C-alpha cells in the first residue's frame, strides 16, 4: 500500500534523524485569510505538518487561548464546510500534510462517512478527535480508512499500558502523546515524567510519536525533539497570531525557522 502523506514525512525525517515540527492553527482565527496566510508562512518556513483546528462551541480539552480563538472564529462565521474550503486553498499552494483537529460532535452531526470523504476531497490527510477514545471509534476508523485518511488517537500520562497499546494500534500516521494531565496551553516547564511516557509509548509501537500540550518555547520544542518524532506547538502560536495582527505571517515564519534550524536541527 502506498504510504500516506503523513507517513512519508515521518519516514523522511526519521531517515534524516530529525523531528517533525507540527504547528497548530485555528481555522478562521483571526480571520479565514489570516489563518491561511499564517499556515502558508509556516509551511514555507519549513514546518513539517499542519494541525488545523475546526472551531467548536464546547472545546473541553482546550485551555483559554484556543477556546478564545475558536470563539472568535465561530463568531466570524467559520463552519466545517468553510474549513474544507480553507484546506483546499492551502493545497493549491502547499503539499504539506494537514491534520484536522476537532471534537466528535462535529463529525457525528456531519455524518462520519460524509465528513471523511469531504476531508479527503479537500486535500487534508488525517483527523485528530480529542474526545473520541478508541473504544468509541469503530465507525469513525472505518469511515476514515475508506476515505484513505489517517485516524490519530491520543495517549496521556494517565493511560495504562493496555490503553497505550490500544491507542497505538488504532492510530494511523502517528500517535498523539498528550504531555501532561490538563488542557492545551502554555506552561513554563515540561512535565518531569514526559521522557518516561514517550518511552512507554515507543516500547509498544513503531509508529511515530508526536508530543503536544504545553510546549510553548523553542527551547521546550528542542527538549521534546530529543525524545519524540514530532513536536506540536499550539497555544503559543495561536497567541502570537492574535497579538501580531498584520505581522502574524512574518512572526510565524521567524518562530518556525528558529525552532526548526536551531532547536530541531
Amino acid at each position, binding site marked *: 500500500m502506498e504510504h500516506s502523506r503523513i507517513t512519508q514525512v515521518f519516514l523522511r525525517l526519521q531517515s534524516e534523524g530529525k523531528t517533525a515540527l507540527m504547528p497548530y492553527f485555528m481555522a478562521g482565527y483571526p480571520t479565514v485569510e489570516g489563518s491561511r496566510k499564517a499556515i502558508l508562512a509556516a509551511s514555507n518556513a519549513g514546518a513539517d505538518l499542519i494541525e488545523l483546528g475546526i472551531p467548536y462551541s464546547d472545546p473541553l480539552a482546550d485551555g483559554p487561548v484556543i477556546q478564545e480563538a475558536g470563539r472568535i472564529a465561530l463568531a466570524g462565521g467559520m463552519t466545517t464546510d468553510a474549513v474544507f474550503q480553507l484546506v483546499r486553498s492551502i493545497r493549491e499552494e502547499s503539499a504539506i500534510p494537514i491534520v484536522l483537529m476537532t471534537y466528535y*460532535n462535529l463529525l*457525528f452531526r456531519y455524518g462520519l462517512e460524509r465528513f471523511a470523504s469531504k476531508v479527503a476531497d479537500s486535500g487534508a490527510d488525517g483527523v485528530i478527535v480529542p*474526545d473520541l477514545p478508541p473504544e468509541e471509534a469503530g465507525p469513525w476508523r472505518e469511515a476514515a480508512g475508506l476515505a484513505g485518511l489517517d485516524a490519530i488517537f491520543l495517549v*496521556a*500520562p*494517565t*493511560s495504562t499500558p493496555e490503553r497505550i497499546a490500544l*491507542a497505538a494500534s488504532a492510530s494511523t500516521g502517528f500517535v498523539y502523546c498528550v504531555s501532561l494531565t490538563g*488542557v492545551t496551553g502554555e506552561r513554563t516547564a515540561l512535565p518531569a515524567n514526559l521522557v518516561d511516557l514517550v518511552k512507554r509509548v515507543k516500547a509498544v509501537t513503531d509508529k511515530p510519536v508526536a508530543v503536544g500540550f504545553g510546549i510553548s518555547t523553542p527551547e521546550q520544542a528542542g527538549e521534546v525533539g530529543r525524545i519524540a518524532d514530532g513536536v506540536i506547538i499550539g497555544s503559543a502560536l495561536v497567541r502570537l497570531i492574535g497579538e501580531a495582527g498584520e505581522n502574524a505571517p512574518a512572526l510565524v515564519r521567524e518562530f518556525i525557522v528558529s525552532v526548526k534550524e536551531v532547536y530541531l536541527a
Partner: protein
Amino acid sequence: MQQLPDAHGRYGDYGGKFVPETLMSALAEVESAYDALKDDPAFESELDVYLRDYAGRPTPLYFAAGLSKLYGHRIYLKREDLCHTGSHKINNALGQALIAKRMGKRRVVAETGAGQHGVATATVCALFGMECHIYMGEEDVDRQSLNVFRMKLLGAEVVPVSSGTKTLKDAMNEAIRDWVTNVETTHYLLGSVAGPHPYPMIVRDLQRIIGDEAKKQVLGAEGRLPDAIVACVGGGSNAMGIFYSFIGGETKLFGVEAAGLGLASGKHGASLGCGEKGVLHGSLSYVLQNAFGQIMTAHSISAGLDYPGVGPEHAYFKDTGLATYDSVTDIEALQAFKRLSAIEGILPALESAHALAYLEKLAPRLEPDSLILVSLSGRGDKDVNVVAEALG
C-alpha cells in the same frame, strides 16, 4: 427487561464515554470503585444512615388536597424539597462523596446550574472534610446569589465561569477541564444522569430511592400504583430517580422540559423535544445543536433546566416510549410557582414548577380521579428573587 447500560455504558444507541484520553482511566477507576461498593452491605448501611439521619429520608409523599380539588384528580407530591439542602441533589452527593472517600480522593469538583447540586456537594464536602470547588456560570451566579452564599458558608470555592453561554453547560466544561488537570487527586461529583459512563448509571442508582420510596408510600396510601408520574427534566436526575421503579408498568411517566420563551422562539431547553442526536459532555444523547453540530444556547427561567443536553437514558426512554416528554414555558412555570404557593403553602423550585405546570395539560386528558404523583424536586426559596423580577 435487559439490564442497562450494557458493558459499553450504552442505553441502546445512547450513552458511552466520549472524553479525552486523560479521563478514561479515571472513569474506569470510578466504575470499578462503584462496582465494588454497590453490593457491599457496609457501604449500603453507611449511606442509609446518612440518608436517614442527615438528609432526612424518607421524604414524605404528601396528598395535595388543594391541587387535587383544583384538577379533579388525586395528586400527591413527593417532597424532595424537604431533603436537607432543599432538593433531591443530596441523595447523589452523599453517595458519590462516599465513593470518593473509598477511592481516597480528598478534592471534589462539581458543576452547578441553579446551585442546588453545588450546595449539596459543598454540604457533603463539609461533612466529610473534603476540598470543594464548584463551577457555576456567571449568569447563574447572578440569578442564584443565595445559593452562592450558602456554598461559600459551607467552605466551597465557587468559581464563576465566564466562557461560552455563562450557564450550566459551560460550568460543566470547566468542571471537566479541572478534572482533566487534577485527575489524580480529584473526584468529579457530577450532578445529573448525564456525562460519560458510569455517571448516568451511578446517579440513577443513587436517585432511584425517590421512586422506591414513593412506590411503597403510594401503595400504602392508595393500595395501588399511580396512573401517572410527572417530573421536570434538565439533565434528568430527579425524573430518572422517580421513574425508575415504575418503568415498564402501567404507570405513565411524563418528563417535562423547559420550553423557555416557547419552542418556536428557539429560546428553550427542550433537548428531547427539539434536539438531534449528538455528543455533549461525554455521552451520546439528544442535543440542541445547529446543522454543523455546534451546541446551541439553551434558555430557561430556571437555571437547573437551562441546559442543551439531557441524560442518555432519557433519550432511550423517549425512543422506546418508556416515558413521554413534553415541555412548558417560563410563564407557565411561573404561574405554577404562584399556584402551589397559594393553594398548598409550598414554594416549589422553578425547576419543579415545570412539572407542576404540566398538570394544566395532563389533568384534562386523564380519567377523573386519576392518581398522579409529582416530583417536587426542590424548594423555591432560591428562586424568590428571579420570580419577583419576572412577575414585576
